[in-house]
Structure formats: structure tokens, C-alpha cells
């Protein structure tokens, strides 16, 4: 039972990985695939980069948030070494 919070972080990590990978291949990759002009092509490439970056940031933010919650819950009752 002690490992349950870490199991939850792990489960969240892989659910996000599956969902984000699917979103990336099914939605981000085909963006602008039928564009003909250079400006459309550039715009779709920038949009793809932005969306991919957003997916990475989302994973990082959720993981950092969950980890901070876990660390705070574990260190709440530990007296600080400087006191």
C-alpha cells in the first residue's frame, strides 16, 4: 500500500503517453497534409511543432504537479534540517 501513490503517478504517466501518442499520430501529423502553397505549408508546420510542444509540456506539467503533491505529502511532517 505504501507504493500506491507512486503506482498512481505511473498509471497517469502511461495513460497520458497512450492518449498523447494517439493524438499526435491521428491529429497532429495529418495537419495541413493537403496544403499546396508555401505559406499554408509553413503555417501547418508551425502548427504541428506548436501542438507537439504543447503535448510534451502537458505531460511535464501533470507529472511535475503529481510528484510535487506526493513529495509535499511525504515531507509535511518531517522537521526541516535547519530548525
Amino acid at each position, binding site marked *: 500500500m505504501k*507504493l500506491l501513490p507512486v*503506482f498512481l503517478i*505511473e*498509471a497517469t504517466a502511461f495513460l497520458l*503517453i497512450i492518449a498523447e*501518442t*494517439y493524438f499526435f*499520430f491521428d491529429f497532429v501529423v495529418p495537419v495541413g497534409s493537403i496544403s499546396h502553397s508555401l505559406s499554408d505549408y509553413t503555417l501547418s508546420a508551425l502548427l504541428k511543432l506548436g501542438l507537439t510542444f504543447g503535448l510534451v509540456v502537458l505531460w511535464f506539467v501533470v507529472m511535475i504537479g503529481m510528484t510535487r503533491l506526493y513529495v509535499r505529502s511525504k515531507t509535511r511532517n518531517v522537521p526541516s534540517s535547519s530548525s
Partner: protein
Amino acid sequence: MPLGLADIGLLLLSFLLPFILLLVGFPPFLRFLARKGRLLDDVHKNPPSKVPGPVGPLLFLAALIGELVVAVGFQSPVPVAIIIGTAVAFGVGLWDDLYVLGGKTKPVLLLLAGLGFVGLVLFRPSLYSSAITFPILGNVNPHLTIYTILAVVAFPVVANAFNMMDSFNGEISWFALLTSLALLVGGALHYAATAGFDLARVASALPLVAIAAAFLVFNRYPSRAFDGDSGSLMFGAMFAGLTITSGVEIAAMIAIVPAILNSFYTLSSVRGFVERRKMAARPTYIGEDGLLHASLDAGAPSTLVRLLLLDGPLSEKDLVTNIVYLTLLACLFSVGISVLTWVI
């Protein structure tokens, strides 16, 4: 698809040959390393002890023989591609074992493993499929360029992730064994569900299972052998290659989530690639009670191990048991994903 007797014989041979070679070869190789003074510090013992290493060269030899059996027996180029990527990663690791590479040099050099692997696609375009299959949802549209870029990047990422799981007695061998078994199950289900799927793609995973199982005998607590970076990078590169050729990308990613989390915690806390020997502070320390404690140093990297130790100090054996539980959970989910993808 039913297997013939010859197929079963080849599958058994590709597992047993590397497995027996390692069981028989380890004792004399460990004595040879000890005689040559090749001893590595087991830093989590109080007082620190010495363990023969790196045994990466012997592990690579066993992997090479196992993949050669599959390549010749099944007349397939798949094991050749896997061994090319694995050989480059092994070479980078051995260089690091002997001369110590910089924190950034290693991942850059490991890109060569991915490039060597995908280079073979120029000659054999059927080496992998760029259409990823998701559980329940099915295939997404294939995209060769993006898939190939991701395949090249997968080698340094996965190899480094395995490398970072190589800190405690038995950690890397348990991790490699469990994740390779999950990969093997995924590949076998893919084979059973897909007409025309090459059996060699499944058989190529057997040497990895064999070397991880045999290495566990010598690496489990208390370790009698350390693999060094040559071994851990080789395990990671082999896993990456097998993932791509077996077409079980999602299940494989799920199986190695503990390593992904561990790398994420380390890289985000030290802000980049830093060689572990050059880190300002260690994430854990051995207390006077002989147990491992989470470091209270603000500059220490926040690894997965440090998170586990926040609950209280643990012996090295209990800590590795907890990591095995985390890996087991990820591998069970991975098998579940494979069942959802190929059976239901």
C-alpha cells in the same frame, strides 16, 4: 498460425544457446576480470565493496550468437538490423566504461545506433511498418518520415533510460527481464493475430530474454557481476530495435514507464544531461543504520529512487524489490495493452 517442429526447435535454440553460454561463461569471465583488476565499486554497501565488471562484452557476445541463430534459421534480416543498433550502443558503452564519455557525448553517439538500424531500411523497406497500432482504436495513418525520425531518436532515449536504471544490485537485470518478457508477449500476440507476420520478429526477442535471465543470476542482490554502461546501453538499444521490428510500440512504451519516469525526474532536476560521476550530490546516502536514505541536499537529483525513499529508509534489497513491483505493474499493463490491441 501453428508452429512447425523446426520453428519450435529454432525458438528453443535462440533462447537456450545465449542462456547456457552465459551461465557457463560468467564464472571464468568474472575470474578473468578480477585477475585483470577490473573491479567496480559497489557504492551502496557499507563499507563499499568491489564487484567484477563490466560484463557487457560477454552479454553482447551472447546476444550476437542468439540473433545469428534467428537470422540464419529464419533467413531474416530483422536480427541483423537489431544487432547493428545493439553493436553501436555496446561500443559506445564500452568506450564509456574504459575512458568515460561526457554526459552529452553519449546520447549524441547513440544516435548512430538508430541511424545504423534505419539505414538497413534502404535495402529492406519491410523492416518495419510506420503505421502504429493502438489498443481498441486500431491503426493510425502511416507516416514513414516521422516514424523513422522517432525510430532513430528512440535508440539514445531508451538506451539512456535503461542506463539510468542501473544503480542498484539486480535493478537492471530485473528491469530488462520483465520488460523483455512483456515485449515478447506483445510480439507473440501480434504474430498470432496477423497473417503473414514474420516469426523471426518474435524470435529476435528471445536472446534478450535469455541474456537478461542469465545475467539476473549473477547480478541479483548481492551482485557478483556488474554490466557497466556497455551492458545497460546494449540492453536498451536491443529493446528499442525489437520494439520497432515487432510493431508493439505502445505496449513497449508502457512497459518501460518506470525508466521513462526515472529519466524524466533526473533530467528535469539536474536540468540536462550530466554524467553521473560529475553530479554535485548523490540522490541517496547510506545512513549509520546501513539503510539507504533519500538525500536532503537540495542539489541532489530527484530520481525515482529518491521518491521511493521519501517514505522512509530501505535496505538495498527492499528498494530493488519496490522497483521490481513498479516494473511488474507497468509490464502487466503492457500485456493488457497487447491483449486489447491484438486479441480484442
